């Protein structure tokens, strides 16, 4: 795919240099890039879906490695892989059913048709339904042989139909479907704010006091929507050191006429006793319902638990990540420059001190993210509605397939 490589390289560089940050922007650009990859991909004659998936995996591997902390990249890659699988299965099921209907009319394909009666139409239809649903115990045992048989039969059907030229239309159809589905995905990413904001009215009533930390665009839209509907509420915005994005959010809210109070992060515990609800955004939602959020969020969640204040996380579905967080404070975190906390000029004389073995006496820690365990979260509001943390794994199973957790190229030989 020579045409697409420069695009991929450019995006990888942007990710590495942190030029593009923030789940929304990253997710959108990843999806667009993968769409171009799919459209540029030359479809082979056999095993098209697998080959396409493999190509995506190759690109995805590079993207994920560029910024492993930016989980949205991995999410979109896995979504696309799932889309490919879905589209392939649905088109194959339709194709096979169509084949088994037309087979009787043509005597030339008797030999191939002998394979087909082993898979009756009912079984095929049932399997198609199961494949589109999340894996369950039933399908686990049947899955492997049937799917390989299907793919073989699909490819063989493709072969046998090659003379009629259906193969090219079939491959075009798959590509077309996948590109259309990725387009839907991009739309979904863009419109997640609207769908989440629609639910604002259900949660914010009159004379509410809301606390938030830092700035999240989802939270902003959420509060705007409540304000549109003339609900009365006040907002305490905690600054969110060291980025101080809370100031930006406060400015935006004040311009809309929302009563806003800016507080320092240290005052969160003091003020939370007078707060009705904590609404925050997230960087990523993990498979166990845990949240990777901007630093300081765990402190807010603990304070909210102490004062029995509901802790609500609003996030679009592109932030749902199928990974389980192992030691997230360390592995899913990024330490930024100490200059945010200490002015190098002021503290330059302290940098000279060191122990005998030369290690510096002064260390500065500036993490970017914080992990909030699922037991501290009261509610997730996504574009599919409100859910409790224990339900998130089902949503994730809907969007992703289990064998895509590790994005790695499988075939050694590159097809096309």
């Amino acid at each position, binding site marked *: 795919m020579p045409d697409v490589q420069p695009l991929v390289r450019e995006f990888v560089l942007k990710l590495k240099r942190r030029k593009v940050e923030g789940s929304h922007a990253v997710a959108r650009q990843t999806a667009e890039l993968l769409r171009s990859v799919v459209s540029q991909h030359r479809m082979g004659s056999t095993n098209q879906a697998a080959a396409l998936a493999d190509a995506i995996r190759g690109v995805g591997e590079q993207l994920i490695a560029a910024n492993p902390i930016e989980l949205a990249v991995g999410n979109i890659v896995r979504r696309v892989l799932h889309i490919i699988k879905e589209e392939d299965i649905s088109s194959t099921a339709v194709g096979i059913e169509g084949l088994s209907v037309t087979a009787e009319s043509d005597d030339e394909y008797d030999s191939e048709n002998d394979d087909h009666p082993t898979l009756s139409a009912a079984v095929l239809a049932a399997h198609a339904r199961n494949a589109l649903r999340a894996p369950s115990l039933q399908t686990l045992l049947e899955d492997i042989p049937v799917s390989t048989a299907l793919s073989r039969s699909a490819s063989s059907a493709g072969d046998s139909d090659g003379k009629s030229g259906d193969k090219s239309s079939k491959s075009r159809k798959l590509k077309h479907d996948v590109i259309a589905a990725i387009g839907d995905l991009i739309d979904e990413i863009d419109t997640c704010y609207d769908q989440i904001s629609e639910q604002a009215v259900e949660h914010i009533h009159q004379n509410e006091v809301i606390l938030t930390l830092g700035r999240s665009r989802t939270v902003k839209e959420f509060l705007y929507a409540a304000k549109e509907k003339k609900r009365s509420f006040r907002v*305490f915005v905690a*600054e*969110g*050191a*060291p980025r*101080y994005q809370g*100031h*930006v959010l*406060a*400015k935006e*809210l*004040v311009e809309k*006429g*929302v*009563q*806003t*109070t*800016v*507080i*320092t*992060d*240290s*005052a*969160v*515990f*003091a*003020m939370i*006793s*007078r707060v009705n609800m904590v609404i925050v955004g997230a960087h990523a939602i993990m498979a166990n319902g845990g949240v990777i959020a901007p*630093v*300081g969020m*765990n*402190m807010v969640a*603990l*304070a909210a638990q*102490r004062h029995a204040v509901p802790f609500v996380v609003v996030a679009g579905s592109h932030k749902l990540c199928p990974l389980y967080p*192992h*030691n997230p*404070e*360390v592995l899913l*975190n990024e330490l930024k420059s*100490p200059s945010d*906390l*200490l*002015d190098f000029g*002021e*503290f330059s004389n*302290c940098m000279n*001190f060191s*122990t005998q073995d030369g290690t510096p*006496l*002064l*260390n*500065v*820690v*500036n*993490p970017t993210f*914080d*992990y909030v365990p699922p037991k501290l979260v009261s509610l997730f509001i996504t574009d599919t509605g409100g859910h409790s943390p224990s339900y998130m794994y089902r949503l994730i199973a809907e969007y992703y397939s289990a064998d895509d957790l590790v994005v790695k190229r499988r075939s050694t030989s590159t097809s096309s």
Partner: protein
Amino acid sequence: MDLRRPPRSSSGGVEPKIRQVGFVTPDVSSEPPAPAVPAAAAAAAQPAASSAGSPPASDLSPGSLSPVMIPPPRHADHLAPGSPSPAASASELGDDESWSRAPSAAELEANKGDLAEIRNDNVSASIPQKQKTSKAERRAIQEAQRAAKAAAKETGLSGKSAGTVSGANPAMSKQAKSSKASQKKDVPQAASTAASEKKVTERPPERDRKKDAPHPRMQFDDVHRVEKAKKRAIVNQSEARNRVELFRHLPQYVHGTQLPGLESKFFQLEPMHPSVYKVGLQYLSGEVSGGNGRCIAMLLAFKEAIKDYSTPPKKNLSRDLTAKISSYVSFLIECRPLSISMGNAIRFLKNRIAKLPLTLSESEAKSSLQSDIDRFINEKIVVADKVIVSHAITKVRDNDVLLTYGSSSVVEMILDHAHELGRKFRVIVVDSRPKLEGQGLLRRLVEKGINCTYTHINAISYIMHEVTRVFLGASSILSNGTVYSRVGTASVAMVAHAFGIPVLVCCEAYKFHERVQLDSICANELGDPDIILKVPGKADLGHLKNMADNENLQLLNLTYDATPSDYVSMIITDYGMLPPTSVPVIVREYRKEQLWI
């Protein structure tokens, strides 16, 4: 998940000694019940009592800990007639012109509504919100001294019993009430007043026990009172715009506007002593901060003022001096609201002034007061800190990772001492806006060679995995065990508690207070709101600069917060290591008149 914390050895660096904890009723009772004595003898008895009651610093060898000695409960004393003498009760009058309490107008109304004078006195009593000595208070002191003289005469009548409680407030209020009564009526009242003072040793009746509660503070949402206070103010304060509704009961003024005005008036402010003025300016500018620092600065300024003081003709020294001190205090309040440590120190000073024996000459009285101030600073702050350090050092083991928040003088001393002793540990300094006090502490620690990590308060969840102990300082500890300290302490304690890490609060006992507080909103100090807007070092964050006048935007700069007692594992004071539930015991048993030095 692997623990980043190093595994704890069972013994750590220091073998835990078997030590007695809890309440140990001493066989040698700390204050022998003194018979009813005239004021002078009582004053002599008190130092003896207090020296036994204050922490036995002498027998403090490293490694052995003295148990917390709690004296037997007070009602054992009522068999001994008049043990805390009438003079002591008279001295309590001085106690109650405390710096931030509304006078007893409210409780007078509640308790003795039938007295006609009350209504008149209410008006006059409501004025001294700003701690200028009102007529009522001056009258109260006058009556106290008259009563003291009368009591000295009537030593023999010690058998009378009725139920005046020995607590400070009830005696004061009863005296004040009876003093007001005797203003209109005559000397016969004085006799009954004197008789009622004998009852201080009796078990308090129910209604007087209610007066044990501390006075409510001035509430700034009462417009009437605020106006009155403003009229008497030395410093013109303009109220800040963008006041937060939730905090209307607290004063919020525009900062920075007073400083130039006050500086220009330096040589014109006759009633103010220059050293007090200087301390006030230092508070305003933030040069002197921290509970101990402010308290010591204030006391030294008062010492200077007392040195230069001379009694005007025809005036009583203690009454006039108390009035002067009150005026200084109100000036300091206008510069910056008093901290609880300062309040307790002022209460002590007024107590001492009121208890001055009348036989002393002016110079003797002044030198006695100055030595009292020195003794207070020495015993209650300097030596207390040493005792705290010696207790706390047992809690620092090798390979410890200690976390501290902000900049506490006591915690810094502990870390310095541990480093001098050669313990291997490292320190994590957590800091927060807007004061960024941790940076100063960080600098001082690194210069001493202590291995430090610096982070901001949002990152405490990240860093708490490595921590073995948390040491915190406090501005005060309240009677329900709540730790009143720099804003953000509560969050640090909460996260430490969630991770199962012990939280040790180090606080001198003179900072304890009998007030109770449930959250950080009832009582707090509001700082300059404009500091929130300006983020140092980030010029591009001027988002909110132009919006400061928008009525929808409010800025809140809290100075203190209240940490619930269940987050605190242990409080280290000069009286030993206590659980948070023991604080009211210390306040009650060690703060009563005979033990306030």
